[in-house]
Structures are given as structure tokens and as C-alpha cells.
């Protein structure tokens, strides 16, 4: 995985175009919403609901790109276009996604207090 956890240029652009205060509020919203999306991804996988799985991955990808979380976006995109994985492979992918999200959340929280 060569993509950075947070692409700072993207995040700076977001701050510049929308205003720093708004960008930080948006980070808060993402930090509230992303765990819901991750949980949704797991539930969809457990239920064998391919459409819901794809949609949850899609949302996560879309939001990750917004904040420059390019590695997370790339992983989510792979799940989006890859279809419903087998339980074992899917479990590994979503675990990896969770771990990357933890890094993103830590980085964004740090930026928030910077």
C-alpha cells in the first residue's frame, strides 16, 4: 500500500475552499459516520447482502477521498468493485480496513487539534 494515510495537500485544499472551521466540523461528522459505515459493511457481509456491502464500501470510499485518506479510499474501492467476498477473505479485508481507519482517525484527530 503506497498511498498515504492522509494526503495533506488534499486536506489543505479542503480547508482553503470551505474554510478551516467548516473543514474541522466536517472531520467530526466523518469520525461519527465512518464507524457506522464500517459496522454496516460487516453486517452486510454477515447477511450476504452484496448490494448493501457495495454501497457501504462506496460511501466509505467517497468520504475517504474527501479528506485525502487515499489508502483507506483505495481499500474501500477494492471492496466496492470486488463484490461480496467469502467470509474468510472478507473478514481479513474488513479487518485491514478497520486498522487503516484507526490510523486515519488518529491522523485527522491530530490535525483537528493542530
Amino acid at each position, binding site marked *: 500500500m503506497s498511498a498515504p494515510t492522509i494526503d495533506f495537500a488534499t486536506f489543505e485544499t479542503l480547508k482553503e475552499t470551505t*474554510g478551516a472551521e467548516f473543514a474541522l466540523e466536517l472531520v467530526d461528522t466523518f469520525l461519527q459516520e465512518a464507524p457506522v459505515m464500517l459496522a454496516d459493511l460487516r453486517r452486510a457481509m454477515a447477511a450476504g447482502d452484496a448490494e448493501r456491502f457495495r454501497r457501504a464500501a*462506496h*460511501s466509505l470510499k467517497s468520504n475517504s477521498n*474527501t479528506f485525502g485518506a487515499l489508502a483507506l479510499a483505495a481499500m474501500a474501492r477494492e471492496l466496492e*468493485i470486488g463484490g461480496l467476498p467469502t467470509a474468510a477473505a472478507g473478514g481479513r479485508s474488513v479487518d485491514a480496513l478497520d486498522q487503516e481507519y484507526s490510523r486515519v482517525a488518529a491522523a485527522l484527530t491530530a490535525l483537528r487539534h493542530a
Partner: protein
Amino acid sequence: MRELRSGTARLLVVDDNKVNRLLLTRNLELQGHSVASAENGRVALEMLRREGFDLLLLDMEMPELDGFQVLEQLVNDRQLRDLPVIVTSSLEGVENVVRCIELGAEDYLSKPVNPVLLKARIGASLEKKRLRDQQKELMRRFATPEVEEDLETSGFSLGGKLVRASVMFSDIRGFTSLAESQPPEETIELLNTYYELMFDAISGHGGVVTLMMGDGLMSVFGAPVPVADHAESAVRAAQEMVELIGLFNVEREAAGKPPIKIGIGIASGEMVAGYTGTNKRATYTCIGDTVNLAARLEEHTKAAQRMILIDQATRSALSERVAVESLGAVPFRGKATAVEVFAVDPN
């Protein structure tokens, strides 16, 4: 930061994802627009039907009613089908973009949406909408709702198709001498009242005025929108026209002005109906023997001293309730054989 421009508009953002919704709304507000948002297609359609919006920014992936379903509903909604839609999505696959455009979306922006690109696309979309609104306004003024509807549903193309319909010609008897005996302002005023009354009677019976020349009007019943009983509708319209002129004359006489008389000719049958002219200027009209006959019948009202004359085909299509009198066969210019002419009682 806020950039106020003259081109501010009322926009609706639809996205089920909160981060996307907030971000897009923020970007649009910074561009000076007034923005409302909805979290799915169903809520969006409710808002669109309730309030007026200039443009819709639509996400594709949504629960309840997704973007494709919203586009489909908009296309089939007469009130909303002209609303410009910009799709904002991160859908994978070019076939999805194609599908959006085919369903009538004006533009497609990939998420995350670049604010500069967003501004340019919205500007272009709103400008196009302004031109379309202007065009529609012109259309309302110069075309009948039927022709407008026909243009909107089938699109504009020169050329005609064979239809069965009734054609009516009408004019004011002795209009030229009347116009010469009074100031031009009075003539214009007279014409305006006359047109208003005649248009009302004609369109009230499903007819479409296709030609206005001085005091003369040509109207069609049964095209472009089919009318089942077009002959009877035309005759009923003619009777109403005569009646309205009668009422108008009461007013004129009270004002010390001479009464006006009208003559009406109606013929029914096959004709070619369609748009003639050039791609820049065209008019909806009908062509054929039936049309010529209607014009001849209208001319003949003067000699026959009757207000409404119809041909055999119109006569045959009428119900018993309409009182008709045969005037025998009349030789017309351009007709090899004499034509059976009937007079309709004005009621």
C-alpha cells in the same frame, strides 16, 4: 469568502451521505447560492414538488429511491422534466455515467467534487435553463398549448404526416372598409378583442389556431392532438364564435359603433399536418384539398349570405342535434366538380 454574484440560484442537494451532503452544500453556499438538502430520492422528489428549485444536484447511490429512479420520475413529470440535474457521484463504471445522461441528466461530476469545476458546470446549467425558460415563455406567447405539448413530446422536425381533421377558416366580413373608416388604434383594439373571443371559442373546443392574417384565422381541429369528434367540435366552435360576436356587437352598438359580421368555412378529411418553414422559423400548419375547400367555403359565406358553411364530410360527421340546411352544389374555383355545401344554423 462568500462570493455574491448576480447568478444566485435555489439549489437542492440530494445525498444520503452526511459528509458529502454537508460539503456540497457548503461549497454551493460559498458560491452564493441558496441551498436546501435531502437525504434520499423520495424526500428530494417531495421537496421538488412542493418548492421551486433552479437546479438539482443528485447523488446516485441512495436508499429508498436512488438517483436513477429520481431521474426516471423527473423525465415523466411535466412540471419537473425541465429541471436541470447535475449528477454528483463516485459510481464506478462509465456505463453508469452514460445511463445518467441518457435519463436526462445534464452533467456528471465525480466525487469528491472539485469546487472550481462545480462552479463552472452550475453556471453553464443555469444559463441553459435561463435560455430554455425564455424559449418556453416565447412559446407560450406564440404557440397554442397543444402545439407546445406536441413540440415538447415529439420534438421539432420539419415535414408532415397524414391526419384526419377538420379545418376552419374565418374572417370579418367587410373588414377592409371598416378599417378604413376608423383610426388605426381603434382597428387594433377591435382586432385584439376579436382575436381574444375567437381564440377562446376555438381552443375551448380543442381547436388550434395555425394562421393569423389580418382579420383572417385558420384553425385545425384534430391535429396535432387527435380529437375524436373533430368535425362536430369545429362546428360547435363556429357556433360559439357567432354567438360571441353577437354579444360583442351589443357592446359595439351601445358605443355607437357599427356591428361586425363574420364568415366561417369548415371542411373535414385527410390532410398533411406538420411544421413547415425553415429550422429557424417554422409554423404548424395543414395542407391539402380539405384545407383549400375550407377556404373556399369561407369565401362563399358572403354570396350565400350565411355565417357558417360546411362541406359534405363535416355534415356527415355531425350528430342529429346540429341543424343543417343543404344549399345544393356550388362550383368552386380549382374544383373540377361542384361541391355540396351546407349551412349551419348559428343556434
